């Protein structure tokens, strides 16, 4: 794999994580637990989709075959998406949504922070912009996790159950492959071992505030980077791409 191929794959993965999580959060519009949280989630989704657009536009330039952001979002099949399994997990209840956000944003924030120092100027620039947004997302979602965990017996039980269900998807974020290795060696990209250590401390502190125990789950499910997704991904992609698949080339 050449440096450019790795940079393209890495940029697309960043875009895929942001787009798929943004799409999941959009599903909460008109289905949030309360108006304020609906607005918060819609705003987060907007940030994620905006970030995906920046990553996809850049990917199109690296690839140099004339593909634009919409081509990457709407004209690839589920196997071509390389997002983590964590971000495609169904919304479930509000506790699931918050736990998913905290686990992912804690990682993504650290990843972006590391990318601000990478040698690829464009990725570093996007990372500065996006990092500020993820910073306040995490402030909001981690406070919610504390409220749920340290709230009532019911909310504590549901947050515990959500954490138990989603924890097994977190390990994938640190299981890098050739693309991550090249990005680190050739572009001074993120060191996943360092990020994992920082992430563990960060998440442990939030869980401690939330009176939630770190799950004793050792089983890690991976495959997202290689396009091996969970069952729910196909449904998400089908809904997201419906318009462009049914009415190819439609514009408005």
């Amino acid at each position, binding site marked *: 794999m050449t440096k450019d191929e790795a940079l393209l794959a890495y940029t697309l993965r960043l875009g895929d994580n942001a787009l798929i999580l943004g799409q999941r959060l959009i599903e909460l519009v008109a289905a949030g637990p309360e*108006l*304020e949280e609906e*607005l*918060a989630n*819609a*705003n987060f*989704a*907007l*940030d*994620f*989709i*905006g*970030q995906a*657009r*920046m990553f996809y536009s850049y990917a199109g330039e690296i690839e140099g075959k004339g593909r634009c952001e919409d081509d990457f979002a709407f004209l690839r099949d589920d196997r071509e998406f390389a997002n983590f399994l964590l971000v495609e997990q169904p919304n479930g209840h509000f506790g699931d949504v918050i736990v998913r956000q905290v686990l992912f944003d804690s990682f993504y924030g650290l990843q972006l922070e590391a990318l601000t120092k990478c040698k690829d*100027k*464009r990725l*570093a*620039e*996007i990372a*500065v*912009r*996006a990092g*500020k*947004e993820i*910073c*306040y997302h995490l*402030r*909001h979602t981690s406070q919610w996790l504390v409220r749920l965990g340290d709230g009532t017996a019911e909310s504590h039980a549901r947050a515990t159950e959500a954490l138990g269900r989603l924890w097994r998807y977190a390990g994938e974020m640190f299981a890098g492959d050739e693309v991550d290795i090249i990005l680190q060696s050739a572009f001074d990209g993120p060191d996943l071992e360092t990020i994992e250590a920082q992430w563990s401390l960060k998440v442990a502190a939030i869980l401690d505030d939330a009176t939630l125990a770190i799950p004793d789950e050792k089983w890690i499910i991976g495959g997202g980077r290689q396009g091996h997704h969970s069952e729910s991904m196909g449904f998400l992609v089908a809904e997201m791409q419906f318009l462009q698949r049914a009415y190819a080339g439609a514009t408005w």
Partner: protein
Amino acid sequence: MVVVDISREQVLEWLHEVPDPEIPVLSITDLGIVRDVSIGSKVVVALAPTYSGCPATEVIEQSVIDKLHDCGIDDVSVKRVLSPAWTTDWISADGRKKLRDYGIAPPEYGASKRELLHGRRNVACPQCASLRTAMVSEFGSTPCKASYRCNDCLEPFEYFKCI
């Protein structure tokens, strides 16, 4: 090469008349998103996007092109500059005053990382200047604003968050 015969100051003056589509009392120069104007064979305006997902970005770019066309400049292009990233610290003093007069509390405490992580201090009510205010919702009608209520004059208001 034909060079457009116009001064940079003149272009900036025209751009000062282009409103932000979400908060029309503010111009795009008040908002601090016009980063550069260069004049050669055409006029190139460098704009910094605010939030990544801000739907106003494209509208603003088009309004800049339309405005300069109206002013007689045919060859205009807009360049998006990501770095340095836009921050609410770039909103001008005049812009902050316009926001307050419009009923939106301007961002007050700077956009340091500490502010992003822990920020939540007293925001002055744009109507009566009371500091006895409370946040109703961290998110509002647009990503850049939170919803607040004044406990003295009881008016609801929006607060332009620091980022």
